[in-house]
């Protein structure tokens, strides 16, 4: 464990709650964050898959991007703000329906991924011309700098990382959160609404990063903390640390920026071509479009894949992948999957070796261990479609 001084670390509004619940705290993305609670990573992981886990993600970068002229009614305002952000990301943002959210990637001029983020079109008729965007905590300074520089004079960025952003994930999430926001039970995966509780407005989105059904909720520091306290009083809900967040997302086949995604990796290589919708493939107009469109047509040289070690030894990030004694790739995330009850990993391999079932060797501590390319995710997603 890194012996980082906690004094220079930022704290989320929920920090006192983590301490109260006995969290083991570590430095993460510049914040003092819970890596696990006394139950431990494995139990927290399994709890989330069967009950409801509550994750503090206030260290992430929620923000609002608004037309310089302000929000207004009508589809035109949405098209204007969407056109601005589409110069930076390859997804069809114009085509979002009111209240719809979409995963996308921020690209550099070479088509490499600078971050992955969720962009939501507000549902509310009077908030058109605004986008709700959540970027990764460790990348928020970079991302917000890019937005402000690229869209100066055209759009205004308002950070919203001074409040509480939490995720409630798992099969019990709907019934638990529905007690406070009855409307949230009507939302489908990747739909979002502003909902009011006791006079306080929250942004409630049906999404998450565990493979389970669930919600992400943004609120003010005070109202968000009060709501989290109420939720944690529910016997179905337990606080979950970053350790289980990592094993949950890995089993769900979801990428972690800085590990599975990096500035030299394109969305096609990352097997995220699905974030580039038809219109954008036809018209381009995003950074690195030449490379990305070429890779879409000819296939990428390397590809992100699931990796299933066939023995019990986990293969961690950085483990080399071999086929017939020749290096063909690298593990970018690896560990133990408590729900799969086996080691699981993902990484990049040469396109020729990327088919599920391909036999590979993982070099763990100098020994070749058998593994095979696996279909992602390792557990079936349980999103509410």
């Amino acid at each position, binding site marked *: 464990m890194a012996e980082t001084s906690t004094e220079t670390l930022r704290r989320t509004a929920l920090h006192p709650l983590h301490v109260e619940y006995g969290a083991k705290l570590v430095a993460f993305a510049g914040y003092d964050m819970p890596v696990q609670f006394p139950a431990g990573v*494995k139990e927290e992981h399994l709890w989330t898959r069967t009950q409801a886990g509550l994750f503090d993600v206030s260290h992430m970068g929620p923000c609002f991007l608004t037309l310089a002229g302000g929000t207004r009614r009508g589809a035109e305002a949405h098209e204007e703000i969407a056109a601005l952000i589409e110069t930076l990301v390859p997804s069809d943002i114009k085509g979002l329906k009111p209240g719809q959210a979409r995963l996308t990637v921020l690209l550099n001029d070479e088509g490499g991924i600078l971050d992955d983020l969720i962009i939501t079109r507000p549902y509310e008729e009077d908030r058109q011309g605004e986008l709700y965007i959540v970027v990764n905590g460790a990348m928020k300074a970079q991302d917000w700098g890019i937005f402000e520089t690229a869209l100066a004079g055209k759009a205004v960025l308002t950070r919203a990382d001074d409040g509480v952003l939490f995720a409630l994930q798992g099969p019990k999430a709907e019934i638990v959160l529905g007690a406070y926001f009855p409307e949230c039970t009507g939302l489908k995966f990747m739909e979002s609404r502003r909902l009011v509780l006791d006079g306080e407005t929250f942004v409630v989105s049906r999404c998450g990063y565990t493979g389970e059904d669930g919600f992400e909720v943004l609120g003010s520091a005070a109202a968000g903390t009060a709501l989290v306290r109420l939720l944690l009083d529910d016997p179905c809900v337990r606080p979950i640390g970053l350790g289980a967040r990592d094993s949950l997302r890995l089993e769900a086949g979801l990428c972690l920026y800085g590990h599975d995604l990096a500035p030299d990796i394109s969305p096609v290589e990352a097997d995220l071509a699905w974030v580039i919708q038809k219109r954008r493939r036809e018209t381009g107009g995003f950074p690195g479009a030449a490379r990305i469109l070429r890779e879409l047509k000819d296939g990428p040289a390397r590809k992100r894949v699931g990796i299933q070690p066939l023995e*019990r030894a986990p293969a961690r990030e950085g483990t080399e992948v071999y086929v017939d004694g020749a290096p063909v790739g690298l593990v970018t995330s690896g560990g133990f999957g408590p729900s799969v009850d086996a080691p699981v990993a993902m990484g990049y391999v040469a396109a020729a070796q990327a088919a599920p079932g391909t036999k590979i060797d993982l070099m763990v501590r100098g020994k070749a261990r058998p593994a095979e390319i696996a279909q992602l995710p390792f557990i079936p997603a349980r999103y509410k479609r």
Partner: protein
Amino acid sequence: MTTYYTKDHEWIRVDGDTGTVGITAYAAGQLGDVVYVELPETGAKFARGDDFAVVESVKAASDVYAPVSGAVLEVNSALTEAPEKVSEAAESEAWFVRVKLADTSELSELMDEAAYAAFCKGL
């Protein structure tokens, strides 16, 4: 039989010039759920401080260091099938290896139970 402890949280229970080695309950608690243990081969030789085994939790892999120099007489292969035993019974059932000590005088460098308890308290 006397049990000695290292600052890296291994224990060794010594009987004459043989010893049983494992990781301490404190270490197991810090690691969290153990999901994999990699043990050396019988006959392998180690110098004091060499990494001779690996214990992996959901989160991370950690090396286990030889508390003394010696040769491996026996490994606890039950841990390969049931690594979770390390979380449950670190200082008894979940021993890692039995070793033949190369130099029993190395034991004087290790902590006794009271000293180790005080050492953990200060962490």
